[in-house]
Structures are given as structure tokens and as C-alpha cells.
């Protein structure tokens, strides 16, 4: 009888533990999705601690190298992969480790960084996708601009409009897009202006066209970039001569984007109220901010002309 009770307890507890264990295993995978990516090596649950030790050994090993080149890149890659198999969530593996091999083996670097980009634990890290795109355009031969665009876009989106990084990521994003669009047929300045203008047009149609938020059509950032691109297209320098197509595009952009910004269509110099000719290039300008009776400049927001005393008609309320 005593044995029967024992056996019943064993069976019942085994069933309950089995059912509960199965459910908890599923829950654990949801709570810690990165466990799937961790190597199945029996390390007694100390994968993280072993990864920490491996990281320090890796840093120590790198310190013993003069440079990472063809002679040691395989060993560095092997160590990086081992680190990733123990702790795929360690951001430093990608941000500092993977970049060590970016010159000797850019393909491997991008492969490692792509894995990191897909890691849900690192989804808020904007540097990793940026580095992936950066390696593609700077170290790969030939540069892979088209493939780099989604990474730069990811970096911009992840940076969430933070100061500094966002501008940097966005610059690379637009430049990569410009390279893809021009395909060697247009100069870089023209291509960049085209891409920025296209983004502005897209943004005004759909605020989520590129990045949304900070990169929206009416954003200061995009307008600043457009303004700078217009100047670059129009102004001659030692290694650049403005092209007819570039000038046409720049004029179109000025008229469309900066129609109310009081800048010279020809040279993009800013001008003040009452000015008839551009001080930079002598082009006839669209005059603004003058009294309709005496044609003299008036202060912004003035209700009466300071020369004739005439009252200005009130602007219709919006």
C-alpha cells in the first residue's frame, strides 16, 4: 500500500512537472528570445560568464596584434563568432569587435553586423546598422551603395531624431541614395540635390516617406540639406563646374521649396525687404516688404507706413 502511494505520487508529480516544464520552456523562449541563438554547448548555464571571459581574452588578443590583416583575420573572425555564440546580445562584439576586421574582411563584418541588426535585443542600437552601411560603402570594393541604403535608413529610424547621430546617419543615407540614382550618369552634387528634392516631394505627399518625423518634408533638417545642396550645385569650385541640368534642377527646387524664403534664385544669396537686385549676382529679385504706396521698405508686422502714414490693409485672417 505504501509503495502504491509512492508510485502514485511519482506519476502525478512527474506529469505536473512535465506539463509545467513544457509551458515554462515556451514562456522562457518568449521572455528571452536570444536564448535560441546561444550555442547548444553544455556549459552549465554559464554561457554569459564564459562570454565575458572570452571577451577579455579577445581584447587581450587584439592588444597583441599590430594590425588585423589577411594573416590573422580568420582567427579574429573565429573568436568573434565564438563570442556571438555565447552571448549574441553583447553590443561591443559588433561595435568594437566586428569593426576590427572591417578592412581585412568587409564581407564578414557586414555578415556579423547584419546578424546584430536582426537581434531583437539590439533593436534600439542605431550605431550597428550605420556601421554595416558604412563598411559597405567605404570598405567594400566596389562599394555596395544600394545594399547599404536599408542599413542607413534603419540607423536613422533607430536614432529617433537624436541630435548629432541622426544628421550623420541621414547624410550617409542621402549620399548612398544619390549614388544609386545617378549610377555614374550625373555628378554627385546634382544627384544629391535630386534625391533630397525627391525626398521633399515624397514627404510632402506622405509624412512617413523617409524616416518621417525629423526628416519630414517641412523639417528644418531636410530644408537645410536642400539649401546646402542647391548652393553646392550652383557654386563653382576648384574641382567642380555647375552643369546646365544641375542649375535647372536647382532653380526648380528654389522656386518650389524656397518660394517664400527670400533667396536669390540664381545664386541662393539671402536678401532683405525692399531689395530689387541680388547683391551676390545682380539678378532681378521679387521685391517684398515694401509700402504699396511709396515703395519704401517697411518693418515686418507694421500697420502703417513710416514715410506716408498710410494704413496697410489687414491680412486676411487664416
Amino acid at each position, binding site marked *: 500500500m505504501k509503495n502504491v502511494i509512492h508510485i502514485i*505520487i511519482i506519476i502525478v508529480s512527474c506529469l505536473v512537472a*512535465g506539463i*509545467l516544464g*513544457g509551458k*515554462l*520552456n515556451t514562456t522562457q523562449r518568449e521572455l528571452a528570445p536570444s536564448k535560441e541563438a546561444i550555442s547548444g554547448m553544455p556549459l552549465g548555464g554559464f554561457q554569459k560568464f564564459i562570454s565575458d571571459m572570452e571577451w577579455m581574452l579577445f581584447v587581450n588578443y587584439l592588444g597583441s596584434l599590430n594590425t588585423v590583416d589577411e594573416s590573422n583575420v580568420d582567427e579574429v573572425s573565429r573568436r568573434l563568432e565564438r563570442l556571438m555564440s555565447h552571448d549574441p546580445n553583447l553590443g561591443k562584439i559588433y561595435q568594437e569587435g566586428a569593426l576590427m576586421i572591417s578592412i581585412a574582411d568587409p564581407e564578414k563584418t557586414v555578415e556579423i553586423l547584419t546578424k546584430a541588426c536582426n537581434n531583437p535585443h539590439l533593436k534600439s542600437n542605431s550605431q550597428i546598422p550605420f556601421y554595416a552601411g558604412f563598411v559597405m560603402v567605404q570598405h567594400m570594393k566596389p562599394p555596395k551603395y544600394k545594399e547599404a541604403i536599408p542599413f542607413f535608413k534603419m540607423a536613422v529610424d533607430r536614432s529617433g531624431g537624436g541630435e548629432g547621430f541622426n544628421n550623420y546617419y541621414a547624410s550617409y543615407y542621402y549620399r548612398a541614395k544619390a549614388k544609386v540614382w545617378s549610377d555614374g550618369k550625373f555628378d554627385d552634387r546634382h544627384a544629391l540635390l535630386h534625391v533630397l528634392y525627391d525626398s521633399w516631394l515624397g514627404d510632402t505627399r506622405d509624412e512617413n516617406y523617409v524616416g518621417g518625423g525629423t526628416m519630414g518634408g517641412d523639417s528644418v533638417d531636410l530644408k537645410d540639406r536642400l539649401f546646402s545642396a542647391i548652393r553646392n550645385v550652383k557654386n563653382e569650385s576648384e574641382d567642380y563646374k555647375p552643369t546646365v541640368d544641375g542649375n535647372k534642377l536647382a532653380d526648380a527646387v528654389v522656386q518650389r521649396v524656397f518660394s517664400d524664403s527670400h533667396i536669390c534664385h540664381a545664386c541662393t544669396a539671402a536678401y532683405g525687404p525692399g531689395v530689387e537686385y541680388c547683391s551676390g549676382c545682380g539678378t532681378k529679385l521679387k521685391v517684398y516688404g515694401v509700402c504699396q504706396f511709396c515703395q519704401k521698405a517697411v518693418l515686418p508686422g507694421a500697420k502703417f507706413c513710416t514715410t506716408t502714414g498710410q494704413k496697410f490693409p489687414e491680412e486676411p485672417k487664416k
Partner: protein
Amino acid sequence: MNEIIAIAGSTWKNVLRLKVVYFLVFCVWVLIASALNYDVLSLGLHKELLVDASLFLNTITGVLVIISLTFEIPKELKEGVASTMLSKPLGRTNYLIGKMIGYIVIGAIVCALVAIGSFLIFNVSFSEPIGVAMLQNHILIILSLIPMAAIAVLFSIALPEIIAPIVTVLVIWFAHSTSMLSNLPIIYGGIIPDLELFNFKSEAVYNNAVSWRYVVMVALWGICYAIFASSLASLIFSRKDIK
């Protein structure tokens, strides 16, 4: 019930009276604090390293306490300690449960001391409160002592004195890598232990807390598995001849 409490009480009192236990706890604290020296070599990851080292060393401490159980039971049986009680009908089961609870309590106290020390070291070193994830993981380590103690009891009864601790260590070690068997319903978790359920060390280092509901559920699993293993041990023990 009184017998179980008496056995458990005498077990933990005997062990916790030893000064060497506290000396070892102090050594563990020193080891945890030594992680602070690795700020340069870890490229600034010394905070994460300290959290991880505390969890690693606490796990080792817990396992060592449990392993001592596999030495204690065969030794007591050999020396004829509690032979009067073992001759009673329910005496053997009570003895095993008492020993198991006693060692769980010892492990919980020692691990709690290690955890408290690591919290203080973290707090003093980085002037910031400890993360919930770190606290949860230390609690999970303490809870993992329940199934581990049952496994130790089972092997200390079923296997010879010399082999039992080795097998127990191996089983505890490999029980962290059994998730590949998760497609075996009931057997996995029911017979084959899954101690990895208690392991969120990586998440603790990155301060990703798990739900308290999960902690409670995993404690329940530990208790169920402990009942299974200790009942099996009791069944084997009841048929064993004791000289």
C-alpha cells in the same frame, strides 16, 4: 512532520554553525568585488561583469552546498546515525525529506548572503540601486536549489558513495542544456530536469527583468520536480538494506 523539522533543523544548525561557511562567503564577496579591476581589460564592461560574476559565483556556491548533501547522506548511513528513526515505517521518507529541506535552507541562507554582499558591492561601487533583473536572478538561483537538492538526494540513495557526487554534478551541469529535448512532452521537465528554466543570467546583466509570475511558476515547477525525485528516492530507499 515534527521528525522532518527536527532532521532539517539539526542539519542546517550543524552546517551553519561552522565558521568556514562564513569564511567561504567572504571569499566569494572578494571574488565578486575583484570584477571591478577589469574595467580596462573588459573595455568598460566591468559593471556587467560584476553582475555576471555575482550570479556565476552564487550558482557555484549553491551547487557546492547541494553536492555536500551527496556526501552527508551516505556518510550518515554508513556511520549508523539516525538508525532508530530509519527502522520506523515512515522514518526513511522523513529522513530524506528532512535532509533535503535542511540543505535547501542552508543553500538559501548562504546564497542569500552572497547575493546581499554582491548588492552592497554593486551599490557602493556604482552608486546606483541594483536592477530588478539582478534581484530576480539571485532569487531564481535560490529557487533552483529545490530541484537540485532532490536530484542530489536521489543519486545519493541510488548510487554508491563515490559515484553519487560526480553523477549529481554532471546531471546538474547537463540539466542546463536539455532544451533540445523540449519536443518530448512530459519526459522533458517531468523526468529530465530543465534547470535552464532558472537561468536568466544574460538578461540580468542587461537588466531585462522577467515577470514575477514566471518566477512563481518556475518555483512551482521546482517543487513538483523535487516531489517527483524525492518520492523516487524514497521508493528506492525503502527497499534498500541498511546495515
